[in-house]
């Protein structure tokens, strides 16, 4: 038997040799525009998408704001800043087929899904999930539209929404994440190519989980997704977003914006499983994931963010809740795994504006290899938000001794009647735990998976069933070979 030192050496070897499982590209003819960003490019994108003038104006305004901004560098991550003139800002599969069923799907694309293990047919049949597939920025397949239509639910690409539901888009787009909010949101507003739009009418409970699979597929294409989800008064919806990406050599920029609006008494549950290409063992390649996700809660409304983050070379992401209405509730449940050279600076912001507002934060970080995981969170309770409450729990689990984990909690409470609780722990997977599992016949790799799943249970439990299983598998894959 090898000694501990040798085992640890081997562990590091294995960690660094664990390859990204979904690295492949699909040969689909794409319609791209030249590299670089300028007012002309913004106009071209808008034109290619046949957008109305108001949308073009919106984009141009955002572009001009972006020009005045600088890329932020306050996060605890270091990366080579992308050259924004070296990125292609638009790529769409050349033909955009209108599909009534998945049989009409491009065989190449079908193959991609098969490789990912996503059988849409199966999902349609078994899981009752409507899947709006975003492939390189343009939706090519939308299912279950009819069922949703009966309830008055709109679930479509944002491009379609701009054409078909301009009033809703105009009314809400940019209200939660304004153009000038940050560098990446401004960029996204200028060049977003597609994304999802969802509207749940008053009092309607969405009968199925709404799900979108995002993928990045055109080499060198930045992905700028835009999601707008509006839950009207008293409605309820659960939205799933999951993603995987083909292996790439160069860094891929991803700067998505997600806006959620929960009107009075509405309830939105937004779940993400993120598994983009994290780069190779030396930190080359990999997706840069700079995401702005934010929701606003009106009176008695609730927004719950759940995320399982295992991919990307660099993650910069803070799904947040603005608890504007009285008695509104915000929740954030997160598992963030970093391995090899991955870096993550992720967390949430809970802004309590209304009275009797409540927020819960459960963040679980797992760091392995030479990675760095950071939790950054803000809990702000304004003067008028009397009797508000927050509970935060931030745990870190370290594997090996070459990784790092940091917690940056910011707490601002401006009244006497509110209560904030913060708990934080850092632990290592104990030798004793591993030996105990080993002694019960469970091999070390499986033991790690078991312990990690137990550690993440509070978060995984928040995910819809099918997603939870997928997330568990993903955790196992991400940490494969990370123990000796």
């Amino acid at each position, binding site marked *: 038997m090898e000694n501990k030192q040798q085992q640890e050496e081997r562990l590091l070897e294995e960690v660094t040799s664990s390859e990204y499982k979904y690295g492949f590209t699909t040969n689909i003819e794409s319609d791209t525009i030249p590299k670089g960003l300028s007012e002309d490019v913004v106009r071209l994108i808008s034109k290619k998408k046949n957008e109305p003038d108001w949308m073009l104006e919106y984009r141009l305004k955002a572009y001009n704001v972006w020009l005045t901004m600088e890329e932020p560098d306050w996060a605890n991550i270091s990366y080579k800043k992308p050259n924004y003139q070296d990125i292609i800002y638009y790529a769409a599969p050349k033909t955009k087929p209108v599909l009534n069923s998945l049989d009409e799907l491009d065989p190449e694309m079908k193959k991609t899904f098969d490789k990912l293990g996503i059988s849409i047919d199966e999902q349609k049949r078994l899981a009752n999930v409507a899947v709006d597939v975003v492939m390189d920025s343009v939706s090519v397949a939308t299912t279950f539209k009819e069922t949703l239509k009966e309830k008055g639910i709109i679930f479509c690409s944002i491009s379609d929404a701009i054409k078909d539901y301009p009033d809703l888009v105009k009314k809400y787009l940019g209200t939660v994440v304004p153009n000038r909010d940050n560098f990446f949101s401004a960029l996204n507003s200028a060049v977003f190519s597609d994304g999802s739009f969802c509207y749940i009418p008053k009092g309607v409970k969405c009968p199925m989980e709404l799900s979108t699979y995002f993928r990045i597929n055109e080499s060198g294409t930045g992905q700028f997704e835009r999601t707008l989800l509006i839950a009207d008064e008293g409605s309820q919806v659960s939205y799933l977003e999951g993603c995987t990406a083909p292996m790439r050599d160069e860094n891929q920029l991803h700067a998505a914006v997600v806006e959620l609006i929960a009107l009075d008494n509405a309830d939105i549950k937004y779940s993400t499983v993120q598994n983009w290409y994290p780069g190779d063992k030396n930190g080359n390649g990999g997706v840069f994931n700079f995401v702005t996700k934010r929701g606003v809660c009106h009176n008695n409304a609730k927004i719950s963010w759940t995320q399982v983050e295992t991919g990307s070379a660099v993650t910069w992401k803070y799904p947040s809740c603005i608890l504007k209405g009285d008695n509104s509730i915000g929740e954030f449940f997160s598992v963030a795994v970093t391995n090899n050279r991955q870096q993550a600076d992720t967390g949430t912001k809970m802004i309590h504006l209304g009275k009797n507002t409540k927020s819960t934060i459960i963040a679980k970080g797992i760091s392995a290899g030479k990675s760095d995981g950071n939790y950054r969170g803000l809990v702000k309770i304004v003067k008028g938000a009397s009797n508000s409450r927050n509970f935060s729990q931030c745990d870190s689990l370290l594997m090996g001794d070459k990784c790092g984990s940091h917690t940056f909690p910011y707490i601002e409470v401006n009244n006497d009647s509110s209560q904030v609780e913060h708990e934080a722990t850092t632990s290592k997977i104990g030798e004793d735990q591993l030996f105990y*599992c080993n002694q019960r016949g*469970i091999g070390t790799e499986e033991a790690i998976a078991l312990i990690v*799943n137990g550690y993440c249970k509070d978060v995984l439990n928040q995910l819809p069933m099918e997603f939870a299983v997928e997330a568990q598998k993903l955790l196992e894959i991400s940490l494969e070979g990370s123990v000796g």
Partner: protein
Amino acid sequence: MLKIENLNANVESTPILKGIDLTVNAGEIHAIMGPNGSGKSTLSSVIAGKEDYEVIDGLMTFEGKDLSELDPEERANAGIFLSFQYPVEIPGISVANFIKTSVNAKRKSLGKDPVSASELLKLMREKMSLLGIKEGYISRNMNEGFSGGEKKRNEIFQMAMLSPKLAILDETDSGLDIDALRIVANGVNKLRNKDNATIVITHYQRLLEYIIPDYVHVLYDGKIIKSGDKSLALELEEKGYDWIVKDTK
């Protein structure tokens, strides 16, 4: 079944075991007694294969297989079970889930398919009633917030589920009140048969009133200095360890 010859083992280069000889056959119960620091727990850890312990000399075979070539999980799947003195907590993992994982790991090592949920539940119920364990218990997280007695009972429950060939009970009586002790001991007795063997490691004779050993060994300073039948345990209780130490010097 288990044969140990001239076993010498170190912990961080300090010799703890200094030439142990022990043979355990199927159907037998062996008690190993000795004062604190005599090497009792080290012996159980070395048999189970804990990596902090360095075997520097000697031979351990289990059913003819050289144990030094087996990882801890391989030893477990070969039929060696260690009831821990201090069972660890595994937060977020239910007793049922843990046992399922463990049972399936063993089945996998034997080339068998995973057990079905209904079959497993049936077996769990059977063993739970044998050990007087309440239904809700298996959905609690492994050892989290368990009392001392509950932890030990959990060990014996796992033992019942895995039906090992050789069970090593490391200080299973420590921290147990008399009722818990009786329950645990009854469980061990019920699980006993002619094909399995048990090594009971204990400080006190108390447990041996319930689990009657065929052999009693006295471990002192890393060596077995005296072996006998159950009357030896009684003698130790009465006179302490000193007289044997003096006798053998």
